[in-house]
């Protein structure tokens, strides 16, 4: 992780000097994580792709404002969070996709009902709880980094996450048992 942070810092320095290839390397390193984060928030691949493009464009344009190059990840996800919520505000509630993308996504070798149960359980969380789960479980951010991304105290983050996990634990217990059979 430290080695990775140094590498990111080097690419950021190159980008700041006008080397666009340095930024393209950063993009290739982070695009999958950003895209999947946005996909888990929006549930729409096309929207997530467009948002990802906007996220990296804003990151490129504002890279000189990043004070600590070692915090590129949380800073990038902060931009992604803002872009996603800005899109949510613009989008009318009734235009939600009829079929959730994740309902078609199952891991190979895993019982389909477990995947569907996970997706359904995540959908029943509040957006704030779901985002906390995504950032922690799927993206592996530390609480301090999550607080930076979501701009709220660590205590709030922990409250959202642990409440969500209690709900998920209850919801997934039967499906987990079936998936494990």
């Amino acid at each position, binding site marked *: 992780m430290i080695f990775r942070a140094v590498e990111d810092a080097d690419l950021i320095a190159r980008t700041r000097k006008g080397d666009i290839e340095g930024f393209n390397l950063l993009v290739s390193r982070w695009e999958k994580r950003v895209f999947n984060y946005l996909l888990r928030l929006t549930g729409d691949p096309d929207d997530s792709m467009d948002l990802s493009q906007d996220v990296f464009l804003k990151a490129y*344009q504002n890279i000189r404002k990043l004070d600590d190059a070692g915090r590129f990840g949380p800073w990038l996800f902060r931009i992604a969070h803002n872009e996603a919520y800005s899109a949510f505000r613009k989008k009318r509630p009734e235009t939600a996709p009829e079929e959730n993308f994740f309902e078609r996504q199952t891991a190979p070798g895993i019982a389909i009902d477990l995947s569907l149960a996970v997706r359904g359980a995540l959908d029943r969380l509040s957006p704030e709880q779901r985002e906390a789960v995504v950032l922690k479980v799927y993206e592996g951010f530390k609480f301090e980094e999550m607080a930076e991304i979501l701009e709220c105290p660590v205590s709030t983050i922990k409250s959202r996450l642990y409440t969500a996990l209690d709900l998920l634990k209850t919801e997934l217990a039967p499906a987990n048992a079936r998936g494990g059979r």
Partner: protein
Amino acid sequence: MSTNDNPACGRADLVRDYAFDELVPADRHSMEKHMASCVDCATELDRLRLTTAALRVLPDVEVPRRIAFVSDKVLEPTQSWWAAFWNSGARLGFAAACVLSAGLIFASTHRQPEVRTIVQTASTSQAQIDAAVTRAVSEAVEKTHADDARLTQAALDAVDAKYDTKQRELLVALQQSYAFMQKQSQMTAKAAYAQ
């Protein structure tokens, strides 16, 4: 926040912090010792790990198409006003203006007497310049008038010459007609005399 399944010892949040590797080494070691003897906390840790494992059955998706940037002025990162100015084409203009200003200041401070002479000379020759301009204008007007008169005269001469030529041609034609008629009447008179 806690549910009925949570440990009775009240360390549910610590178990979760432990599960997510958010404890400092000392607390982590302390929790490991606690969970070795607390069945509730150990069970809670197992449930938590089972839940997160279940969540991870949703795989990461590959990005549908690559995101890449090309060098484009519009997309370039924002920079300070000085850096933006220094990297722009305005830098050359600014440098040229500075050199010009420095030259003017130097000239005004070090060559003042010469400038005064030049200014004086310029002020006394203004009348001469005006007279020269007036004279040049008059000459140009006269020359234009002369040219016009010459051209008009040439045109009139040409018309007169053409008129004279026409007159001569007409006179010749009349003479020829008169001669022809005279000849014809003589022939008629001769024929009548013969009869």
